[in-house]
């Protein structure tokens, strides 16, 4: 885990060698055979080499610097030995805390679900924390994050208080969406979390729109705006039309967006290999004229390195990037999923690559912090999560009066009733019992 990121941003399909194979050889202890990497032993698909020339014509003209070159440059410039590391102590602790928060929160969600405190579809993020932390911790408050139904941890990483997220899950009125959204619709205007979408692929155009606003503000309104949008979605979404349509539009207009694919190899019970003609998602970026990168999504430092470059590109106005993070979810698709289809060996293998354990190891080995400090963080997070549950428990359920609020931004949209008054003026409207 102490190795530096060796992913390369593949500019076009004619790049030299497959990033994945290079990466594999650098793993300090985990040399994998291709079949176990892909999850299902029976398929045993070989790792594809990019050396197969696919598209002979390179359409891009902008140059993209490979991450490894950037990292090497940084190393050459700095003098102290500490700079050999990818993160400082403060950064390390921030990353660690964020991932522990994500894990502890999701574990608590599972407990609460089985105790009957929350219902419906709850999708947990265990195992994928490196992606969320690696990307979102680089953002400013004004940058936007768009996610899917597996959005609790994205909201937490972006800064939404755990209390608000837990309340939302309990369906209480103090939740971030007043209890009206639920697990799959986490929104926060303050922290610029634009959702939370139940249908996959639905959020990608919204993210593209947020990036469009950023460009619009810069070019039409002439504001000093370099806000970036991150769109998170999974491998299943990458077969959806909205994904491709948005890749096209984002590259066409050079929108400041990063498309982050959390490829955890499974879409409920559908293996990525069974659903996709060409499973290497990062390759689809260059087809639309943007760089496609593949990165080990179980390693937060590698994700962070790629993210720095991709977010930097977007901020500088160089356009979008497609980042495929190879990651894995330790739990089932949702709390209702019995998770019987996945090979236990595969699950065991990824359990050994737990991103939190890996980061802890990195921090301790490089003496960035002591065991005690990390334990203190864990304890603090436990308290935060406990407090959020308490808060959510004590919060009131929404009153009936909340039923008709927020349907329209302008409640005159409910129209004019037979008595000539707007329906929203009916006193029963605020009680939630009006006829609308």
């Amino acid at each position: 885990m102490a190795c530096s990121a060796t992913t390369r941003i593949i500019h076009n399909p004619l790049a030299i060698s497959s990033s994945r194979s290079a990466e594999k050889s650098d793993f300090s202890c985990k040399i994998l055979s291709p079949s176990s990497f892909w999850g299902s032993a029976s398929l045993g698909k070989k790792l594809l080499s990019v050396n197969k020339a696919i598209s002979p014509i390179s359409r891009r003209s902008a140059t993209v610097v490979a991450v490894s070159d950037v990292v090497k440059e940084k190393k050459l410039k700095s003098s102290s030995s500490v700079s050999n590391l990818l993160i400082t102590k403060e950064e390390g602790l921030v990353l660690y805390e964020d991932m522990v928060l994500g894990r502890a929160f999701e574990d608590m969600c599972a407990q609460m679900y089985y105790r009957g405190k929350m219902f419906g579809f709850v999708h947990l993020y265990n195992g994928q924390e490196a992606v969320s932390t690696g990307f979102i911790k680089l953002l400013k408050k004004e940058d936007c994050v768009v996610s899917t139904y597996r959005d609790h941890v994205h909201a937490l990483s972006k800064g939404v208080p755990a209390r608000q997220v837990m309340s939302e899950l309990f369906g209480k009125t103090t939740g971030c969406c007043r209890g009206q959204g639920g697990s799959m619709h986490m929104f926060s205007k303050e922290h610029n979390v634009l959702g939370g979408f139940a249908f996959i692929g639905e959020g990608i155009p919204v993210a593209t729109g947020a990036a469009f606003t950023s460009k619009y503000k810069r070019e039409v309104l002439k504001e000093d705006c370099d806000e970036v949008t991150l769109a998170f979605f999974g491998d299943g979404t990458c077969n959806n039309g909205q994904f491709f349509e948005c890749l096209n539009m984002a590259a066409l207009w050079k929108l400041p967006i990063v498309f982050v694919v959390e490829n955890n190899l499974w879409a409920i019970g559908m293996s990525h290999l069974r659903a996709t003609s060409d499973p290497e998602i990062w390759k689809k970026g260059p087809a639309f004229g943007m760089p496609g990168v593949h990165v080990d999504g179980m390693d937060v430092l590698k994700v962070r390195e790629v993210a720095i470059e991709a977010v930097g590109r977007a901020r500088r106005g160089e356009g979008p990037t497609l980042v495929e993070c190879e990651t894995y979810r330790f739990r089932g698709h949702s709390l209702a999923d019995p998770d019987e289809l996945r090979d236990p060996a595969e699950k065991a293998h990824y359990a050994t690559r737990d991103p939190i354990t890996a980061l802890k190891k990195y921090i301790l080995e490089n003496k960035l912090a002591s065991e005690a400090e990390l334990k203190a963080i864990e304890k603090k997070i436990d308290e935060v999560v406990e407090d959020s549950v308490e808060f959510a428990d004590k919060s009131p359920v929404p009153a009936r009066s909340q039923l008709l609020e927020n349907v329209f931004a302008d409640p005159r949209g409910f129209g004019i009733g037979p008595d000539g008054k707007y329906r929203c003026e009916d006193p029963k409207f605020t009680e939630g019992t009006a006829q609308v």
Partner: protein
Amino acid sequence: MWLCSPLIHSYSSTSLSSRHRPNRHNPPPSPPPHPLTPPPRSSFSVKVACLIDLSSNLEVHCIERKTSFFFIHCDGSLTSGLNLSNSRSARLSTNAVATKQDNVTASTASKPGHELLLFEALREGLEEEMERDPRVCVMGEDVGHYGGSYKVTKGLAPKYGDLRVLDTPIAENSFTGMAIGAAMTGLRPIVEGMNMGFLLLAFNQISNNCGMLHYTSGGQFKIPIVIRGPGGVGRQLGAEHSQRLESYFQSIPGIQMVACSTPYNAKGLMKAAIRSDNPVILFEHVLLYNLKERIPDEEYVLNLEEAEMVRPGEHVTILTYSRMRYHVMQAAKTLVNKGYDPEVIDIRSLKPFDLYTIGNSVKKTHRVVIVEECMRTGGIGASLTASINENFHDYLDAPIVCLSSQDVPTPYAGTLEEWTVVQPAQIVAAVEQLCR
């Protein structure tokens, strides 16, 4: 509360009937009442002017006062009391059918107004709003360089630039989603569907995101988007280009739908829709783009939730919208010659219905005919029938007659196409049957 209580007497100078009721639309009585005399500067209807004259111990509140322009309610000639034959005959214009000239105010004496076609009126409204607010932008296929397939956005791209009048690739779902994302982050986009039928591809975004996001985000994000485009049965355009999407969209909670039918209301509704913070779908009709009318020079904005009184009458209420308004007016000519006195209301607001105007009419005539271009099954007429039955059942002397298009994919052949939509002869027959 912007409406006076029912205890306030109507403003008519004639004796009050025992069934006086609050009358929002009563214009000033002095000669000859122009249906659309602009009221003094106040945000809502003329009734505010009325109320000022009345007893001062009544509290009058206006929701908002806008002093830079005035709202005009295109209604105006409702009689103030029921069964007052003298007032009725005084108001009835000798011209049986309200022609376009009658419907339009020539505004103040100093400004004569200007004549233009409906698509130009839409463009004028759009341009005024784009001038007024730099966040207003247009997105759609061929809206920029091509000027719009019906020329509604002609000349806007050279003036405002390619980003403000954005030519999108052919990806309705995604660019509608993009517009929604942009609306969430501060812009006010107008999405043009080249033909409303294409928006079937955007149904995912319109239903899930456009309609619902304000609610599921607990009111945090508003979606001030306008979705517009031509629909309806044209001249042998074939089944797929002749669709009426209002029936499919009407169930989506959180959106408003309006249909324009004259240059005057096209411009007014366009402006109102853009200024509204709610998502509004503006239905235009392919065959109405070349209608010519004289509209005021002053700026005006119409009310999204109100219906328009086209021709006051006594015998039967005919409710219609969009192109069918003209079939109805043609039928009305015949009906008047046969001695009937139909009251024609252009409902304009398809969702929500203006039950006040409609209700007042039903209470007067006790007979309703709905003439629409939607399909018989599940169309606007079906909803309107249910709504009127629910609210005004006691006032009906006969079951509501709903004339809709046949539940048939619009055929290409001209003769067949003619038989799928309601023709004036059918309207005449229905009214005669009803008034027997």
